[in-house]
């Protein structure tokens, strides 16, 4: 898909001018953008294959303004899309051609670090890493650490239930949020929880987390802070077969270890990274595993010795332990730079996000390899192995006609295979606009209808982020037909369809 730039009718233009004027009644001129050149930076999120110029961008800086924007839009049936930092990888913050893009970027204040209760209360536009930075002087940190943590907002993290390298041990965003304030589409402010460990009534904290901006606009967040571990140590294991690496992951978990991080990279990813950041990775390896343990000094020493033995027994050709903190950070620097490193291999790449039961790692990686050959597109793998969360990166060139479509088709195939082995189409990036067709494969009609009913409980008019996350039943019917027509209905024998 390329930039959708539909000509607006005079009627639509008048409607837009009216809405902008109404917004400017309570917001400064500069906080309501309508000029094309001002709108451009907002035309996509991190999934840049999908672009659309927003109708209006509103940049409120008080909760009261957010309320007024929402009430106004609610009254006039104007759809609204919330946007954090725009690093999302599923097109969740893709704007609408007839709706307001509500940017939370001005909500960037850390309101409180409560050291006694070990919480941080922040505005939604605060960057993920800024929380850890603010907590660091007290020996505390915020655990979920998406690779995008320098840029992504905590509001976006909540909306996507973001994960990171350390989520295997410390949980996803949902496990680390204690309180939320959000506004429903009609501008009502709802407060959930605070610094206590649970809330009365239904667990709306869990429901809001990962709801992709469909249920409410988050305006304040209280997160849990954890004590920084006394020590962290990483080992790098080198494998000459994918199967062995996959089995080693299972063996670590079965051995009763809960590593702080357990990441895997395949040869293509290793080579790209090594060339880019010189992390000291073995470029001849078929796969490497990075396994980090943290805890008290004693625990870590004991654990690392055991993990080394285990990895060698699992057939690792070599196991390196970081000699010092500098080497540990270098080993991680490679992993963290893997996306941009792979980005250098090809004009464009497309990041997938399926999650599978760990035991199928080798099988799914092999299948991805086959599909890659079949489609003639390179695929690099770098992912959260401990969680079974895959990130195949499909290398393509958007300027070649038809190549994006081919890429999307290949991506869809990979996700469908993930579902077929008992997994899911998205582990942490969300459905957005990108995986909306695959939702039809993962869920039945009744389940999708239940999602729609749930959405209507929060937003009866369906004005918040319409067209994302949950496909309409008619869309699924069409998608299904498409597949049958192509004679490509996959895994028709599986019960889940």
């Amino acid at each position, binding site marked *: 898909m390329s930039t959708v730039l539909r000509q607006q009718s005079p009627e639509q233009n008048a409607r837009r001018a009216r809405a902008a004027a109404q917004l400017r009644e309570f917001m400064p001129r500069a906080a309501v953008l309508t000029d094309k050149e001002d709108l451009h930076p907002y035309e996509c999120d991190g999934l840049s294959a999908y672009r659309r110029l927003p109708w209006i961008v509103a940049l409120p800086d008080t909760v009261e303004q957010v309320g007024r924007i929402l009430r106004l839009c609610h009254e006039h049936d104007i759809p609204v899309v919330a946007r954090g930092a725009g690093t999302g990888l599923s097109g969740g913050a893709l704007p609408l051609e007839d709706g307001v893009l509500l940017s939370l970027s001005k909500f960037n204040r850390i309101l409180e670090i409560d050291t006694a209760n070990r919480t941080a209360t922040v505005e939604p536009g605060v960057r993920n890493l800024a929380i850890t930075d603010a907590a660091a002087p007290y020996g505390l940190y915020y655990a979920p650490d998406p690779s995008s943590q320098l840029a992504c907002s905590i509001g976006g993290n909540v909306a996507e239930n973001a994960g990171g390298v350390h989520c295997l041990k410390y949980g996803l965003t949902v496990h680390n949020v204690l309180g939320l304030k959000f506004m*429903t589409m009609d501008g009502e402010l709802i407060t959930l929880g605070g610094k206590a*460990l649970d809330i009365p009534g239904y667990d709306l904290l869990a429901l809001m987390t990962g709801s992709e901006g469909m249920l409410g606009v988050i305006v304040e967040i209280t997160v849990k802070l954890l004590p*920084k571990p006394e020590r962290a140590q990483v080992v790098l294991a080198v494998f000459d077969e994918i199967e062995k690496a996959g089995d080693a992951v299972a063996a670590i978990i079965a051995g*009763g270890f809960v590593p702080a991080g357990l990441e895997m990279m395949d040869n293509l990813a290793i080579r790209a990274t090594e060339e880019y950041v010189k992390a000291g990775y073995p470029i001849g390896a078929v796969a490497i595993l990075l396994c980090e343990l943290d*805890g008290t000094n004693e625990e870590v020493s*004991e654990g690392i010795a055991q993990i080394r033995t285990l990895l060698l027994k699992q057939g690792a050709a070599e196991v390196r332990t970081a000699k010092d903190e500098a080497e540990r950070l270098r080993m991680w620097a490679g992993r963290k730079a893997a996306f941009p490193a792979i980005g250098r291999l090809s004009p464009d790449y497309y990041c997938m996000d399926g999650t599978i*039961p*760990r035991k199928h790692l080798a099988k799914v990686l092999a299948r991805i390899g086959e599909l890659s050959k079949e489609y003639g597109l390179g695929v690099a793998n770098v992912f959260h192995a401990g969680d079974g969360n895959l990130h195949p990166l499909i290398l393509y060139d958007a300027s070649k006609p038809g190549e994006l479509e081919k890429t999307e088709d290949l991506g869809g195939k990979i996700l469908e295979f993930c579902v077929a082995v008992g997994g899911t189409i998205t582990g942490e990036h969300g459905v957005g606009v990108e995986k909306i067709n695959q939702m039809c494969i993962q869920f039945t009609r009744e389940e999708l209808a239940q999602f729609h009913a749930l959405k209507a409980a929060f937003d009866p008019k369906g004005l918040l982020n319409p067209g994302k996350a949950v496909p309409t039943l008619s869309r699924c019917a069409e998608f299904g037909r498409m597949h049958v027509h192509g004679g490509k209905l996959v895994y028709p024998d599986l019960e889940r369809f």
Partner: protein
Amino acid sequence: MKEDNDISQQLAEAVKAAAQKRTPLTITGSGSKRFYAGDIEGEKLDVTGHRGIVSYEPTELVVTARAGTPLAELEAALADKGQMLAFEPPWFGEGATLGGTIACGFSGPRRPYAGAARDFVLGTRIINGKGEILRFGGEVMKNVAGYDVSRLMVGALGSLGVLLEVSLKVLPKPAREVTLCFEMPADKAIQTMNTWGAQPLPLSAACHAGETLYVRLSGTELGVQAARAKLGGKPMDKGNDFWREIREHRHSFFQNDVPLWRLSVPPAALPIDLPGKWLIDWGGAQRWLKSDASATDIRMQAEKAGGHATLFRHAKQNGATFHPLPAQLATLHQNLKRAFDPDGIMNRVVAV
């Protein structure tokens, strides 16, 4: 031990029939937690026949079991492989089932350090109020496809649907556990628990009862030894029994019929000014109060401390269990209830 059995179709038919006639249902397991939400009017829908572990793969750290599976059976299967339910659920009765445990959403002493029941739920299969069998989440660690309906079911007391199956993340049992005792008053204990909570220590439980602070350490042999040396205190002989008594409300503190309140507050909240006796668990975040004070006073104090209060046991009258919700939030609850159960037949709990 009874046979494994899948009666989901039968249960779904029963719900469908009830929805047609608008007959309210009361979903029943073993009845171990009936004291909590009070009597629920309605025709009995017995789920204890729907039982058995559907799949358990220790290397995946995931178990899926039918809702009627007794916790005893589930926990024994996990223990057999050196694993456990890390939220340490209270049973409150020998027959306790998985379904009831998740529907109530209770968690035990390990909660502040390991996570709550909802944190370990990966997926569910449910019957909604229309009698449809639906599946949400799954058996993988990370899954953000669709709204997190599975976690919404935790603590919903069956008011949004019948739980058929639950997939849970499990964890390895720690190699070593030690409980240490320290004599000190409540205010000092709250401070101590929170000071230690901010340090990288292998804590797995912390509670103040009577005049003693009890702290449990879990981890590797060496890790626990080192932490023990750091903290001092007197090791307890039968630490596990102690934590089980706390978890199951069999500790002497719980042994009378004065109303039992549960206050969920920020862990470092100062001692709360209310008449009665206190037992402080969860590192300060869960405070049990035995008190005849008025519900209004207790709820006001809980709110002032930044939390809420639930009348957990021995309510003198029906209908006062749950902390009232602000109007807007209550409306959202009602909307959600209708979205899952349009005819309003599922567990009519007073909470919503």
